[in-house]
């Protein structure tokens, strides 16, 4: 005879929001490293959050929310990069550049950031998640939706390439 399982309580919107707020800063900054335009980082994180809360009535496991947010930020950042590539291909020659001061200028001129931009996407993700977001190999694998072995390989290649790029730039 199987005993009836007690249904787990639904995670409340307040609980989800609390996790989101506690992760917000790290998520935005992680996205800033992953994106070509770090100004999009906040949009990426909000997008992820809105997606999350749209289904919050059925979420049962609060412990998984932070990992989900990280994974979604990586995924969404990739979508934005893909969209950007398409948009650049079709960019009108009549477009005028923004004349406002860019608060991200210093960040984008940084040597390490420039070197990161030159890494293949997966290697960049691995380095940022491992050494900026300080995730474990498994946490990084979860966020990237790859195996732990793949994370190790990406990280190793990325560190080698970063060393080369930084040597070249100096």
């Amino acid at each position: 005879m199987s005993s009836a399982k007690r249904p787990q309580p639904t995670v409340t919107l307040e609980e989800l929001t609390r996790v989101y707020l506690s992760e917000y800063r790290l998520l935005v900054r992680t996205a800033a490293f992953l994106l070509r335009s770090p100004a999009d980082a906040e949009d990426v994180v909000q997008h992820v959050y809105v997606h999350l809360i749209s289904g919050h009535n059925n979420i049962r496991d609060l412990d998984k929310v932070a990992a989900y947010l990280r994974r979604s930020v990586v995924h969404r950042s990739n979508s934005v990069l893909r969209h950007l590539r398409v948009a650049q291909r079709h960019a009108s020659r009549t477009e005028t550049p923004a004349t406002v001061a860019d608060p991200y200028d210093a960040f984008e001129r940084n040597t390490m950031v420039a070197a990161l931009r030159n890494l293949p996407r997966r290697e960049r993700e691995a380095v940022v998640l491992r050494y900026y977001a300080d995730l474990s190999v498994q946490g990084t694998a979860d966020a990237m939706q790859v195996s732990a072995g793949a994370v190790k390989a990406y990280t190793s290649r990325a560190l080698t390439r970063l060393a080369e790029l930084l040597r070249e730039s100096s």
Partner: protein
Amino acid sequence: MSNSMDPNEARRLLSESERLLPDISTPPLPGNLRTGGGSTRRWVAVSSGVLVTAAVASVAVWVGTVGTNSSPRVSSAAGTDLPSPTVALSVSATPPPSSTATAEASGSPSPSIANCSANDLSAELGSISGFSFHTIDTIKLMNTSSMPCQLEGYPKIEAYTQSGTSIPITVVNSTSTVLGDVGPVESVTIAPEHEVGFYIGSVRDPNGACAPIIGAGVRIIPPGSDVPLPQLEIQVGLCSGLTVYVSPIVDKTTLPGD
């Protein structure tokens, strides 16, 4: 000599790089004070003429799907390209029954997310565009509360002089603007400290019959609410009898030209 970067060196360099990022506004924790500092996101001004899709001052340009109400869904730039929360959140030590274990992103906003009230919002003038007798202001609405809230539809707009005297205007709601179509009317969920927006536009009388009232502004009443936000001075040249065109509230990323 090693050809690879030491992981600790990578940490150090990333940490140094991170310090170059502007102070990204952090949404307030529930019950806590706001950290201030505003969003770092940029609402880049639309340069005049670049996005001209209609140069003729015509109501037909604006009147699109007035009152159209498509199936509500969470508004975002790319909709459903995220990994499904079903995968992410259904894992637990004791797998719950599959029928209740998932976080389906149904596309419909949760009914438990409250509508944004005037108390939850602050309004700010964003980019201003003007060409060929058209003036268009982008109005940004920020969720200043500590919880997400949602808006759907057209804000109600009332015009007032600086001293608070009502200015009679005609308001036309439309998804079409001279900058392009803002898309269907749909529910937009706003995270704390984040913004959505809408357009207010007008077509100036080339004969100068409408003399703009200096300092005039609008009071914005969020959809589903009766309470206006504090008066906001705008640049559409408000005058008595003016027709203004108002777009529905849309996710910022869907604003044409943004």
